[in-house]
């Protein structure tokens, strides 16, 4: 079969990676479907059969993606900036890792500042202050007034006494 896609680069690396990931996910589901005790009952279909089916479809879709990527490579994607991605994901990861120690307000400040930086904000002092204010307002409304149980740290203990 001669590849037809003129505009794309061949081989389409992304399609291979995505296809491989889908096959791996599908294989995981097929394995899990075969592993768990399959009490089929009257239905003839037990808890393992649907994962097995979904898994095989994912495997097929994975091969389909590779085939499509070979036959018809996608046009090149617009260039992605790595720095904003690092800021944003870094902010999320730091927030997730520390929120139980530092509490919601500081966690929100970190996330807000990093997200703003990812979108090109360079006035960090201003961003930190805004994040703090936003964190306090949200904590006040949602935790104190609406009884949503947000993680509390030293600052929340000190000011809201909880």
């Amino acid at each position: 079969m001669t590849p037809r896609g003129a505009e794309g680069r061949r081989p389409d690396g992304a399609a291979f990676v995505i296809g491989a990931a889908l096959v791996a996910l599908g294989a995981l589901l097929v394995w899990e479907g075969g592993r768990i005790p399959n009490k089929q009952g009257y239905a003839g279909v037990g808890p393992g059969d649907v994962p097995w089916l979904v898994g095989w479809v994912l495997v097929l879709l994975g091969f389909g993606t590779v085939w499509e990527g070979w036959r018809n490579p996608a046009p090149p994607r617009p260039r992605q900036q790595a720095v904003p991605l690092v800021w944003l994901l870094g902010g999320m990861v730091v927030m997730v890792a520390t929120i139980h120690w530092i509490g919601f307000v500081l966690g929100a400040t970190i996330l807000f500042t990093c997200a703003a930086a990812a979108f090109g904000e360079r006035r960090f002092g201003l961003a930190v202050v805004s994040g703090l204010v936003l964190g306090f307002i949200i904590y006040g409304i949602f935790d104190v007034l609406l009884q949503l149980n947000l993680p509390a740290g030293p600052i929340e203990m000190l000011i809201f006494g909880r």
Partner: protein
Amino acid sequence: MDTFGFLMQGLATAFEPMMLLYALVGVVLGTAVGVLPGIGPALTVALLLPVTYGLDPAGSLIMFAGIYYGGMYGGSTTSILLNTPGESASVITALEGNKMARAGRGGPALATAAIGSFVAGLIATLLLAFLAPHVVKLALVFGPREYFALMVLAFVTVSAAFGESALKGLVSLFVGLALALVGIDQLTGQARLSFGVPQLLDGVEVTTLAVAMFALGEALFVAAQGPDHGAGVLAIKGRVRMTAQDWARSWKAWLRGTAIGFPIGSMPAGGADIASFLSYATERNMTRHPEEFGKGAIEGVAGPEAANNAAAAGTLVPLLTLGLPTTATAAIMLAGFQQFGLQPGPLLFASAPQLVWGLIASLLVANVMLLVLNLPLIRFWVLLLRIPQPWLYGGILVFATLGTLGVNPSVVELSMLVIFGTLGYIMRLYGYPIAPVVVGLILGPMAEQQLRRALAIAQGDPMTLVQSPIAAVLLGLALVALVVPMILRARGRGDALAQIGTAED
């Protein structure tokens, strides 16, 4: 009691002061998220699910519906003034609306969008009220195999029928279905795909997935395109008012838009995006001013805006009567019902008539509120478009994590947020639609249950799935919806389908 009586009773509920307050909060929030690019009604309802856990069920659902309607109103403002749709069903509005604003006719464009949305919302909500009891009667004859067939049809139309490629839609759908399998099997109690991690036994939270995919994924994608070079906001020149000629050209487009939008929304045939696209195509074919299309024809704003509101109301027909969501927003609203222990479907009309009719009636009230919010107060909403991008996305992300932090701040859940967010970014980057993942996660377990029930009733005979005429027809339609677009694409006629695709709200 007949429909009219129920509706009157519903209006009495809707006019209770607390219910009016919930509706007002809903429409204000909805308009705001509709106006703001990068945040839509699906995400907003997902964010509010955990917050409303302790509130009144009827009020919360009224608020969610207000957000859905409000998002459809607000989206047009951004399309017209910024040429960036505020939510996905307003993509088409940007075509003519932004041209009108550039020509100094932004006022009439905003007016025809708002009034058209009102007219369509009003008619479609009344149609919903009078149609729903009949669909409920039909739904009562549905057994597990008919429900399963209906869900298969919904899966196909949401994922494969429209958009760039059926393959990509199906990949999204099956990733959602795979995520839906995580946790305890509802029929046997068997733990699946949880790998001994106790936090996974409860399955993947809808809130976590929706927030990660819609908020974090979108933010990552926008950030990775580099600093914003977008065009500025166009000022509204002149008054937000239409001339006699504008009225004459708009009213038929509104009615046609409603006639197109409502049936499309109420069938499991995709959501508001498709309706607004078809309405635009119709207006372009029927206009007496073909030379204006592409340069700012008012029909091209009036029709699609009416159609997307009518479709939003139409979506509530299968959601309320069958418990079947056909868009991402409807899917998350279904999660909202389930959070309060309510299962939408024919039985809900019998077991909680006050809630259902209160909800339908308050949509009429919300529609009036939205007209006021979007005509005299339009200049206030335009100010929202002046928030600098870093602050906007910083705020969106803090609010987005709020739901997960408030309900289940375990490291596992928060890590899922980051992982699914990254997945959402990668899917956007390579052109995979997001909505099928969310719909797959919510409808997947329901479809599996119905399938296994149907097979249990027939003692394992798979032929039972096509032995009822209704189920056979529905499965046949699903097959047609899968195969026909594939043939169209193979013949190089896929452009139109690609334009209609990627329904996100």
